[in-house]
């Protein structure tokens, strides 16, 4: 697609998945990514909670964007995002305690996830509601795919399982590469993933 062409709706949705993947390409939201991907299930939990907030905040910010002056847009974005995060925290605790047990530790982390503020600033503030919804959905998918991939790789090497399913022989699980569960393991894994994506993209020309 040439840059002059008006970007299509389809590209709003797909941009966030690979071409402008928030974590791998734009390198934002690294903090929750590295912290919560110690297992595939935890990665999925974080991604699910963040996706919900990302899509909602994108839609609401796009809805109110005409009333928000540029000089105070950031405080207003923050208020909207943190309101949604707190709402979700209460609602999950009250109505879905079993889900809250899994996601609870990640919910407060969403406020500081810069993908959400980043999409509000870079996209939702200048686009319509439906486009912002698609952008939020696309970025959520990109974030989810990456977190589950990273979580699976780390869980596979550090515990010998993926989503708790045993995939390695007993001798491996007796002395696995625990290194991958620690922060350096996260940095190394994401660096390898990024290198692979760059090679893949360059290879395609």
């Amino acid at each position, binding site marked *: 697609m040439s840059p002059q062409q008006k970007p299509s709706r389809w590209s709003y949705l797909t941009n966030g998945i690979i071409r402008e993947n928030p974590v791998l390409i734009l390198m934002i939201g690294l903090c929750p990514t590295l912290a919560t991907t110690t*297992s595939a299930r*935890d990665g999925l939990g974080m991604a699910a909670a963040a996706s919900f907030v990302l899509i909602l905040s994108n839609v609401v910010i796009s809805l109110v964007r005409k009333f928000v*002056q540029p000089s105070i847009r950031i*405080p207003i974005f923050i208020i909207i995002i943190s309101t949604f995060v*707190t709402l979700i925290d*209460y609602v999950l605790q*009250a109505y879905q305690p079993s889900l809250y047990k899994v996601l609870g*530790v990640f919910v407060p982390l969403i406020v500081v996830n810069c993908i959400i503020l980043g999409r509000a600033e870079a996209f939702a503030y200048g686009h319509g509601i439906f486009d912002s919804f698609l952008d939020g959905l696309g970025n959520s998918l990109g974030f989810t795919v990456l977190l589950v991939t990273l979580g699976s790789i780390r869980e596979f090497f550090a*515990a010998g399982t993926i989503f708790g399913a045993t995939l390695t022989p007993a001798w491996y699980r007796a002395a696995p590469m625990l290194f991958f569960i620690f922060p350096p393991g996260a940095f190394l894994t994401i660096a390898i993933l990024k290198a692979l994506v760059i090679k893949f993209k360059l290879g395609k020309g």
Partner: protein
Amino acid sequence: MNSKTWMVVSLIITCAVAAFALAEIYAVTKPKIVQQQVDATNSALGQVLPSAKTFNNVIPDSLWYGLDSAGTKVGIVFRSGERGYGGPVPVLVGLDLTGHVVGLRVASAAEGLKETPGLGLKSLEPWFGRQFVGADSTVNLKKYGGQLDAISGATITSNAVTKGVTEGIRKYASHLTP
């Protein structure tokens, strides 16, 4: 309205709407959240001391007497939190009246356990808690001459749970009389 006034007004409106929404949701969900926590505590108490039908909270949030359907004391449940790798490790322990462990439950990460995922957090796995069934205040890890398997790579967490059990049994021994 000039732009400076609108700037202030729009920020006030945003804050007011957000505060109103939060207050409403809080009012609606608070009783449910409290109820969920009570239910969670009761079900946890029932898990560690199944022979009891009702629980009498003697020391708030730390000690319960377990009573059977006739109102006779069948055991006690205590909560302890010895220092682990990332803070106190909250454990709920059920004892029969002879001072032996009937059941043990380590609180989940959502309930305040801050151990390393993949290492100390494995203290939540059922096999680890089951090892304590039947133990008394002399229980210890194999590493220190006892009979318990520690979680590989997480001796500090394993030791915190063990100490939580033994210290608790000593501390609350006087409550074991019927």
